[in-house]
Each structure stands twice: as C-alpha cells, then as structure tokens.
C-alpha cells in the first residue's frame, strides 16, 4: 500500500534525504493485453536492471509485492531494463539530484 502523499509510481520517499540522494524509482504494471490479467495489475515477479549511459550493468532489484522498485543513482542518463516471465522492456531515464525520477512502466 502506498501512503498518502506518496509519489505516483514508486515506494514512499519518507525518510530519504533527497538533497543527497538521486532516486530513480517506479512501479511495473501489466498492460493486460493478453487477457490473462486485469490491466494495471502490479508485476510482483519482475526484475529491474539499471544500466549506465554505456549500457553497463549498475544495479538490479526485484519488484516488491506492489510491483515497485527503487535505485539510488547519480545524476545523468540511465536505462532501465525490466524483465519478467515473457516480458522485456527498456526505458531511458534522466536522473537529477534533489528531484526523484518516478515512473509507471507497463509491460
């Protein structure tokens, strides 16, 4: 459950010093086009990989029970690679210190 006042995609930012951390976060949702799951269902068995501007692996996390993920990165260009059973999606992001990058990614 996301708490009141939380950001649109990722986990609550309570307790995180955003003046020091460069946060990239979000939520992975099923687009439901295959008809097997309702549109917008949280992907709880996904893996989100953070690649740097050269495509090199930087970090990877599994999605949580709400389909969410979070990285502490550095300012600049990054790529997110989302993997789940039968799905693989890439998305480019620009991260800034002080302002979290918060995403909703459909797969």
């Amino acid at each position, binding site marked *: 459950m996301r708490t009141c006042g939380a950001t649109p995609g990722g986990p609550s930012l309570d307790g995180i010093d955003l003046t020091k951390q460069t946060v990239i976060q979000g939520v992975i949702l099923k687009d439901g086009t295959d008809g097997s799951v309702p549109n917008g269902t949280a992907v709880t068995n996904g893996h989100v990989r953070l690649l740097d501007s*050269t495509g*090199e*692996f*930087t*970090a990877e996390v*599994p999605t949580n029970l709400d389909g969410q993920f979070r*990285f502490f990165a550095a300012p600049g260009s990054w790529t997110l*690679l989302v993997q*789940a059973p039968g799905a693989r999606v890439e998305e480019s992001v620009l991260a800034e210190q002080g302002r979290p990058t918060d995403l909703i990614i459909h797969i």
Partner: protein
Amino acid sequence: MSRETSLVTADWVAQNLNNPKVVIVEVDEDTTLYAQGHIENAITFHWREDLQDGVIRDLISKEKFEALLSKSGISNDSTVVLYGGNNNWFATYAFWYFKVYGHADVRLLDGGRKRWELDARPFVTEVPGRAIAKYVAKERDNSIRAYRDEVIAAIGVKNIVDVRSPAEFSGELAAPAHLPQEGGQIKGHIPTAKNIPWSKAANEDGTFKSDVELKEIYQSAGVDLATDTIAYCRIGERSAFSWFVLHELLGVNNVKNYDGSWTEYGSLVGVPVALGA
C-alpha cells in the same frame, strides 16, 4: 573445479528437490524474499545474521560454522546447492565461504532466483524441517582469501581485479545503485586494478556465459591469468562471483577473494587510491 562439478541447472534442481542427499539453501542480504516464496525444501541463510561474526568483522568461527550447518541438517557428505537473488552475489559468496571451510560438494544454481522466476517455476512458503546433523568443518583455507596487507603488496605486482560497476570504480558512486550511497570513507579504486565488472560474466537472465566467452573477457582486458589474481568489490560478494568464474568455471587456481574489499580498503589511512576510469 569445473562447470560440471560447481554449477547446476534449474532443471537439475527441479529433479532433486526431494533428494535426501541434497540441501538447497537460499542466501541473500535480506531474507524477506525467502519468506514470500522460495524453492521447495530450501532453507535460508542470511548473509549478515548467519554468516558474519557480528562482533569483529570476519567470517563466523569454525565452531559457529559447524553449529550453523549442524542445526540446518547439513552433513559433511551433503550436496549443498546455493542460490539467491541479486544475481547470485550472496550465494556465490556463500559458495566461496563453504570452500574456505572445506565443504566437499557445494554447487551453485545457474541464474539463481531470477532464472527460476523468469522460467515461471513454482515457489513455496513452507519452511522445511530438517533433522539436526553433525558437521565437522576444516580449518580455513586462506589460499582463496586475501587480506589487506597482501592486497597493498600486490599493487603493480599481481593482477588486481575490481569487479564493481564502472561508476563505483571511477569514484562516482560509493555503492551499488540499489543501495543508499555509503561504504568506504572515500571513493575510488586500488591503483593498478583493472575494472572488469562481475556483470560481464553473466547473461541478461543471470546465468553464466560460456567458458570461451569468460576467458575472452579477461584476455581482452589484458589480465594474464598465469599471474596471481586478487578480486575485490565493495563487501566481497560480487568479487566472490568473479572468483567463482575464475576458480570454479575456468579452473584458475591462483585466485583469491579480498572480502574486506572497498569498505575496508577505502577506509584505510595512508594507502594509495586512484580515481577515474
């Protein structure tokens, strides 16, 4: 020491879930995922709570290791199969740890939790009960473990391989990007170290690349494996992954894991440090 003796596939694990000789252990820095679901009959070890001394910074003692394995129902003749999240980082650390204490038959599930999950194989929440065993460990094998003085002496002499991400190597980040940015007192890398990120050795699904591809990674980086090699990262788990590649998959004997890694080296007073790519 070969792919055949050190690595098992998900199919192999699926066929051996109820093999009484096999003990499956999920190892991670956070056992929350184990509680949510794990491979049938797997037990779990927590990287810090079970495998770190907790008072001094070190592995647990031989006696504590024996007690941990005994209460977990692991015998000296058990086939221990390790796997975990985080691309098997902590599972390979545990593999190295089992080798330090001389366990005969320990194997790693290729691709770990991620490959199992991407295959949509089942997880269960039941925690298996295991009968207590009597485990006797060997004395620590320090031929696969490097300490800080040996690392300092190796600068410009032996191969030093920094397996962290390029951003950590250059000094841009202090820790992997899914963790708060803390670690050693300073950022950077050990002079003369070559940056060969652990991830070069893994396919996108977390499984290991072929032996031919693995050899090429080190050759193209100019690492002569005839010379002694020390691998390090931040806390010694990703370097255990690269140690596994060299020592177990490629059969290179003269490789050590520096488990003190950057959290130790980057906090030492007066040692040389390099910045940049």
